[in-house]
């Protein structure tokens, strides 16, 4: 177990280096300067100032040490400090991800539980059938369908001049200034739904399988043979044991959050980490992108460690040493 936790460090280093290298290979920060017909001398000086003329490993080392010292530099795109914009993007993504996550994990787990406890009931059949459709609905298709529904379809049917729910403009309506919970929440509904449809399907199926595996195990028969109430059998034995793999699964899922909502953000123009990356990437904005890469990989790695730890904590057969 300790080995698995320690393994996080090389994954962090190699993973971030690979992304750093790929970024360098696919983008050219002096492209704009090149187009402006700068003299070769000026170009060399420009490259030197940026530090992109040094070996890749040296650049990576400088970038990482600057990141950890909090020395994040100035964005090429905005000409301002990196952190405020990155913080906004991260906060937006986390709000969306956590609201959606709580929503879909709760619904998925409840549906999966009922399905398993009432196996082969109409509810189980319906959930299973719907989950297959949910699994097969990519967010970009479902998102466009939703937009059509709350937009054109709603406006035509109810002779309204505004859509039922906002789907452009990202986090707030353009008319909103400062914090406005109502407006914020309305802008979250569609992205949360788009993120949730597949995840509810995944979680309910995962939970159902886990519960069924547990339900059919010998120790559940033992628990029943002891004469304890069915409620207690479900809560203390079936649910408790089925929760172990689910917790791990959820932790890993949340780890992928920081870098993973690109499609949804793209559909709704939601200013999160995904759009942040795509915007800066097209400008080869290294100072803005390096902290992004580090934060995203740290998220993944930390939540993987948490997944392992929670596994050991929930299952006494696994020991930390």
């Amino acid at each position: 177990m300790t080995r698995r936790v320690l393994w996080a460090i090389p994954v962090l280093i190699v993973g971030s280096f690979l992304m750093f290298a790929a970024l360098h290979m696919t983008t050219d920060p002096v492209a704009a300067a090149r187009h402006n017909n700068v003299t070769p001398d000026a170009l060399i000086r420009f490259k030197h100032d940026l530090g992109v003329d040094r070996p890749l490993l040296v650049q990576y080392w400088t970038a990482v040490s600057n990141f950890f010292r909090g020395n994040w530099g100035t964005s090429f795109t905005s000409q301002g400090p990196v952190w405020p914009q990155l913080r906004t993007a991260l906060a937006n993504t986390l709000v969306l991800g956590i609201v959606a996550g709580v929503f879909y994990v709760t619904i998925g787990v409840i549906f999966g539980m009922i399905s398993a406890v009432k196996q082969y009931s109409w509810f189980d059949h319906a959930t299973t059938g719907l989950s297959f459709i949910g699994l097969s609905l990519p967010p970009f298709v479902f998102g466009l369908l939703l937009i059509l529904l709350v937009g054109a379809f709603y406006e035509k049917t109810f002779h309204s001049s505004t859509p039922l729910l906002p789907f452009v403009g990202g986090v707030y309506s353009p008319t909103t200034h400062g914090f406005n919970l109502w407006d914020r929440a309305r802008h979250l509904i569609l992205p949360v739904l788009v993120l949730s449809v597949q995840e509810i399907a995944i979680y309910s199926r995962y939970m159902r399988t886990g519960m069924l595996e547990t339900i059919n195990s010998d120790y559940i028969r033992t628990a029943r043979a002891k004469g304890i109430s069915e409620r207690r059998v479900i809560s203390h034995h079936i649910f408790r044991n089925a929760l172990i793999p689910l917790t791990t699964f959820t932790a890993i899922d949340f780890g992928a959050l920081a870098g993973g909502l690109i499609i949804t953000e793209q559909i709704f123009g939601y200013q999160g980490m995904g759009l942040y990356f795509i915007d800066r990437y097209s400008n080869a904005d290294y100072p803005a992108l390096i902290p992004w890469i580090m934060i995203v990989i740290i998220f993944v790695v930390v939540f993987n460690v948490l997944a392992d730890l929670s596994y050991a904590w929930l299952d006494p057969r696994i020991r930390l040493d």
Partner: protein
Amino acid sequence: MAIDAETLEEQPEPAAGDAVLEIRNLEVTFKTEDGMVSAVRGLDLDVRADEVLGIVGESGSGKSVSMLAVLGLLPPTATITGSAKFRGLELIGRKQKELQPIRGAKIAMIFQDPLTALNPVHRVGVQIIEAIKAHNPDMSNRDAYNRALELLELVGIPRPRVRIDQYPHEYSGGMRQRAMIAMMMANDPDVLIADEPTTALDVTIQAQILELVKNVQERTHTAVVFITHDLGVIARIADRVQVMYAGRTAEVGDVETLFSGSKHPYTRGLLSSLPALAGRTGKLQPIAGAPPSMLHPPPGCAFHPRCPMAQVLCTQEQPPLRAIGAPQQLSACHFADQVPDTRPGT
């Protein structure tokens, strides 16, 4: 009549020799993809107070299924008909909730594989206390804890104060089965069903567990139903034996009677395939053929395709269980009186 604590108390205390559990014409059918599988096909069985009843049979003969059916522990794919009365109280057709005061308190059951039969994520002590408190909801935690310690001591687990807080994976196989017995004896049940409790264990440990079950039985006078496919085990522990074949009873009798004067060719076959007994005649004769498919059981006597004595009648008519030979002996064979006499020397 609904089952609650009161009606249970009203039941008369069983005297030795009275039947505590009476099973009549029990049938268990599983709905499967391939059709209906009859696992138990009209079983009659009596468990008497303060006795050890051995049930012998091959895999799929319905011995475990019938006991699980009595306790309502079969999956919903099973259809159960017939009757099973515990001290006069019908158990078949009860809701799960109605069976809870019976399970663990009046009829308890231990299982084959002690590794998978204990919940790996709860401490052994917690699992025993759970069994105690299920039937004594008002007992304080401290008392329940002490009772659990007492039980662990009873089943011979050393250093119970340490062991009580350990998890099942920290126990050895034999210890787990001991803990299982402790858990199921927690409420002094009238019947303890032991479903092949030694099969998954090493031979030396098997002997210890057998000894323990015998010991516990003698101390508590609980009736024990010991399910096994091993006649050697039966010889060591049982007072009476019921031999099952293809979901029905083949033969019933006292253990001595069956070993020396069996009136059923199947029991005979089992005996002559037992090395310790066959050794005396020098021949080890396994029963020819394989156990029947319960999807399409053979017509007539289910044993006829493998029976050396089979006649035309056996392929047509199911033989009834009837008294023959020694007192208390019953055999379901058309030609029970023609089963050759006991081998010399046994």
